[in-house]
């Protein structure tokens, strides 16, 4: 059975030079789509991936990552909306490239769909009351 998940990988400094994603493709036949990547000297690397493939192979691939010393988190935990600050103006709706903000046509209330979020971060600074928070 196929599985597709968006995950956040945290690389310790000692691993940033190793071709980790290559192994996921080569050894576990997983497809990947990089949504965000950043590495800074003396700090950990960060990679946001959409990973697709056979469920068993996917599980093995994740195991491999963990064994190698990479911290794996599901992406949805990382972008949150501060419900107290959100005023439901709707400025985010057309800014989000993934369509993660949906306006209820009757009430004009804006809902945030974590599942669709690709953690690009565009909404963070574009939200006037700064209700969107990103935590990696």
């Amino acid at each position, binding site marked *: 059975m196929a599985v597709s998940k968006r995950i956040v990988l945290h690389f310790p400094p000692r691993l940033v030079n190793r071709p980790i994603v290559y192994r996921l493709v080569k050894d576990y036949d997983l497809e990947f789509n990089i949504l965000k990547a950043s590495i800074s000297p003396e700090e950990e690397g960060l990679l946001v991936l959409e990973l697709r493939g056979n469920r068993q192979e996917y599980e093995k691939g994740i195991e491999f990552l963990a064994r190698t010393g990479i911290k794996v988190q599901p992406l949805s935990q990382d972008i949150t909306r501060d419900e107290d600050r959100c005023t439901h103006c*709707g400025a985010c709706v057309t800014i989000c490239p993934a369509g993660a903000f949906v306006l209820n046509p009757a009430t004009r209330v804006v809902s945030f769909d974590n599942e669709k979020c690709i953690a690009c971060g565009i909404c963070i*600074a574009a939200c006037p*009351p700064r209700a969107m928070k990103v935590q990696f």
Partner: protein
Amino acid sequence: MKTISEINEKIKRGQAVVVTAEEILDIVKEKGIARAAREVDVVTTGTFGPMCSSGAYLNVGHSKPRIKLGGGRVYLNDVPAYTGFAAVDLMIGCTALPDDDPKNRAHPGEFIYGGGHVIEELVAGKDIRLVATAYGTDCYPRKKLETLINLKDINEAVLFNPRNAYQNYNVAVNLSDKTIYTYMGVLKPKLGNANYCSAGQLSPLLNDPLYKSVGIGTRIFLGGGTGYVVWQGTQHNPGVPRTEGGVPRKPAGTLAVIGDLKLMKPQWLRGVSMQGYGATLAVGIGLPIPIVSEEVLRYTTVTDADILAPIVDYSETYPQRKPDSLGEVSYAQLKTGKIKVQGKEVPTASLSSYPRAVEIAQTLKRWIKQGEFTLTEAVAPLPGVESGITFKNLEDRPIVE
């Protein structure tokens, strides 16, 4: 018909019939104008959006020994306040920024904290850092002051906004090939999105388009407390083209408002940051409209389909002050989520919160029904179409020494 004092008698007896500018639509559909005008006493409106001409004046009390802040320098949470008044009177404007804010040096700037945020935190009851320097006088010897102030301890804190509640506004688009960062939000290149900013059919001045009801002295919902209209707002421009129903087809009337900050709530005065543009304050305003005639009621039945707004390019037309518009669109069209501009389908978004506007209209309705809020007779009218007011631009002239 009823007079305002008759309506107030009903409010005090708890018998007033109060509905919002949304609810009135179905009532009139069902009962007709004449019967609805007899039965309904008040229609409430609301709007909640960024309003840059907002600020507060404070009297912080006298320190021991005394310091003359007037003519000196004062910072509230690092944001500069205006000190050109008496010894301990200050004014903080919502777009003021800390001196060390990077602003747009790294474009687009974030503008995370400004005067609007200071006002929000003050209203929320948080301590605010006041840092001041002064020149010292015989009667005000102190030259430095660093202290915390709190809303409950200072003499006065008054929200005083020279321009709020714009009657209609532009729909902003971007014809250029790069993203631009404006007071109308982030505009994506090549007509990537269209941003509007009005509560439309719930908006205060769109329900009283010819200022028949609102005037100087009108009591309103302001920032979660009560406030008053004190004057027409700056840039008040009643002479713009209007529809047959009197609704302006461009940004038109505005209100200057005032109210006791100590009675307001942070939920309705929200510091906001416009990326690449600046900091400002989202303000909640609600105007009650006493139904003293069929005519006044008819104006409150305006719907999103009746209100047209001009589509304006903010990459070239707006900054260069060119008059061109890319067409007109109704709020009903804007609210479908997409409009057509130059043959292209453009997704729309709002900067004004409609759910919050509804909540304001409902809150004001509840206050009136419970007898906590009575209506006022305007002391003087706002300048209308007949005033001949025109919108003046600044034509710069060389200074010859």
